[in-house]
């Protein structure tokens, strides 16, 4: 059997498939863990509705817990409250920056921001310059936008607040 605390420890080691240095817990995907002597139930929430990593994450969670000794693992998907980038742990923000991804700013909930071709000035994660420009609202994954630093010429990504 596995206690709740042990299950959480196991889940801290389960990487996000698209950003492997960050765990699914640090991203705020795991919402709740319940353990009984016979089973472990993990409540997860999807990041974006169409995130292609969702099923892989479910498989990795199940495999990790079974490997650690959980007899039966069940997954529950919870949609509300909707996932927000505010749930990304502060430690993860630093890991993202180290990967060249600017972490999301705090979102202004409920407000529709109109940013016609004038995205926020983001500091380049490599050289720190504020001379950056947005190349695309959508990057390599749904959760990131694509930017370029005009000082050091390096492209970088921005984890969009949602």
């Amino acid at each position, binding site marked *: 059997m596995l206690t709740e605390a042990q299950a959480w420890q196991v889940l801290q080691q389960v990487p996000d498939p698209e950003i492997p240095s960050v765990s699914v817990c640090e991203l705020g995907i795991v919402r709740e863990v319940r353990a009984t002597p016979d089973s472990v139930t993990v409540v997860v929430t*999807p990041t*974006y*509705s*169409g*995130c*292609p990593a969702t099923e892989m994450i479910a498989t990795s969670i199940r495999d990790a817990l079974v490997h650690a000794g959980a007899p039966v693992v069940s997954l529950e998907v919870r*949609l*509300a*409250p*909707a*996932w*927000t980038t505010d749930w990304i742990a502060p430690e993860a923000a630093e890991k993202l920056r180290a990967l060249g991804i600017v972490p999301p700013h705090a979102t202004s909930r409920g407000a*529709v*921001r*109109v*940013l*016609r*071709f004038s995205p926020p000035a983001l500091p380049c994660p490599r050289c720190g310059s504020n001379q950056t420009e947005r*190349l*695309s*609202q*959508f*990057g*390599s*994954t*749904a959760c990131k936008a*694509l930017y370029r630093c005009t000082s050091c010429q390096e492209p970088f990504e921005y984890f*969009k607040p*949602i």
Partner: protein
Amino acid sequence: MSAHFQYILRLADNALILGQRLSEWSGHAPVLEEELAMANIALDLIGQSRLLFAHAGKLEAQGRDEDQLAFLRVEPQYRNLVLVELPNADFGRTVLRNYLYSAFQLQLWQALRPSQDAELAAIAEKSLKETRYHVQHSADWVLRLGDGTEASHARTQAALDYLWPYTAEFFSTDPVDDEVAAAGLGIPWSTLEPAWEATVRPLLEQATLDVPSRTAFRSRGKFGVHSEYMGHLLTEMQYLQRAYPGARW
């Protein structure tokens, strides 16, 4: 078919069919960045449709899952707006449609957040966040192309002349709307017309586009009457499930 089920099905079919259309840009978009944008928006829409189909299948309680609802119905059983099944044509028409549609979805998801149907309310809350980015992306392009060069302006104006009549369908009503509204599960789409017009007209004007006058034309996709393009779209989208029924991967 209960009104509740049909109401959810309309939302699901809109998302699925526009997602399918946008995915056609993969490998064909004018620049790589926009290729990624189209694929990501399509992915959001297909993700939303999966959540809605799963919910609709439970409401219907006939044992149909999301795949069966998405792939194994015939044309008159789809309840999407005709607007979303129209061909992409050029990039200008694609982004203009995205704008007209996502600005409407933004209003709709906002209005569905307090729904008595807790699952629908949760899907609305989640989809709203994604839709904000779709509106922003498409509005940027409508401005850029409408108020751009002579060529881009002419194409965008032609796209607006072509698409505008189909937006009247957003606000057509029927007993499904009334029944769902009376139960506190949803709102009649017609109530969103003033807010939608107040959003899109200023942007279209800023993009130096002339908004056509409304005519008596009303497409009827959400009542199951589709355009000549729908059959072709379904042929491609359903091919695998029709050729290999029940195939999984």
